[in-house]
């Protein structure tokens, strides 16, 4: 609470700004320096999604973007079909929504969570299989 009050009244010092910029730039640097790790993470990520829904692997886009004060992972995953047997309670109706877009937000921070939709949902219609 005292911390909050202090933050409210004290303007951000330039060293705090420097620290914040450094943190972000290094995250971006480390991401670009570990391409194999990122590729593996993308594959794992897609595998997890694919456990629940049928996705169009060729059209998946996963990118990192700097947004305001955080680094975000934005994933655009076209869903072809929802598996009937996986998880969901109302297994009855087969969803024929071919153009679902999933937005994944990596490294979430308190501030970011408030924004409900971060990435523009690019609807990419794909014929349902």
């Amino acid at each position, binding site marked *: 609470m005292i911390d909050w009050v202090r933050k409210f009244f004290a303007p951000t*010092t330039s*060293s*705090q700004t*420097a620290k914040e910029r450094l943190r972000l730039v*290094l995250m971006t*640097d480390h991401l670009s320096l570990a391409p194999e790790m990122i590729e593996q993470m993308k594959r794992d990520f897609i595998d997890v999604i694919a456990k629940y829904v049928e996705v169009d692997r060729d059209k998946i886009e996963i990118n990192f973007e700097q947004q305001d004060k955080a680094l975000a992972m934005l994933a655009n995953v076209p869903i072809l079909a929802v598996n009937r047997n996986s998880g969901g309670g109302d297994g009855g109706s087969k969803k024929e929504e071919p153009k679902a877009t999933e937005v994944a937000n990596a490294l979430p921070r308190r501030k970011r969570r408030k924004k409900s939709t971060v990435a523009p949902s690019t609807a990419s219609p794909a014929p349902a299989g």
Partner: protein
Amino acid sequence: MHEVQPEPVPVTQTPKRGRAIVITSGKGGVGKTTTTANLGHALAARGCSVALIDADVGLRNLDIVLGLESRVKHHVLDVLEGKVELEEALVRDKHNENLVLLAAAQTREKDEVDTEKMKALVEQMRERFDYVIIDCPAGIELGFKNAVIGADEAIVVCTPEVSAVRDVDRVVGLLGNRFRPQLIVNRLRPALVKKGKMLSVEDVNAILRLPLLGVIADEPEIIITTNRGEPIALRRDGATASAYHAIAARIAGDDVPAPTVETKETSFFGKLGAIFGGSKA
């Protein structure tokens, strides 16, 4: 490209196995050369034999900082290319006979250095000196690789700036674990840190997470001593000289208390306190 065997050194006694330390940073202008010169003097003042190699081929500077520019006759490429013996190229320091310099070539380029020969040269020098300290050029290209090849320890010099920390982070990544890099935070201005206008040592090292070898404050004295070509570590007293001597002691393995930088009180009341004999930290 044929392999050249290092010249056999005449063995008068059991050959030494001195330590080869590279001083690097990635970014230019953070004080690598000044650090090299001062650590050279500080280690030599402890009675160790020290050789400094200026690996910044094309931009020779270490001789200037040491005040030895008029004595340089040959350079590292002359030795690597077999034009002169190592002994002829070494420049002995004016102030301390334990300290020698192997200057960089000024009119040549970094890609003219044969990496393998450079490694062999450092190896050869380690048999004669307790410390071989290599002043690395800025950048992470061939000049960096040539400077690093013969070393097995690294000291990274970082100023409290976003760009410098970023570059050190990159260099540490390139060095890998073999060099066990240690950190010197250079040009710190404690008064600015106190006001929140400069990254603190803790801020810097929260990101780099390296063993902290020392902290050097940004003092006008360093500029003056560099102007004169008489590194500040030639002195025995004073905060900055002591900081360099403490780093040398730490390098040598002495148990020296953790590095700190005193905040100089420059406020009116601080000065008043000093005048009236208030003991200040």
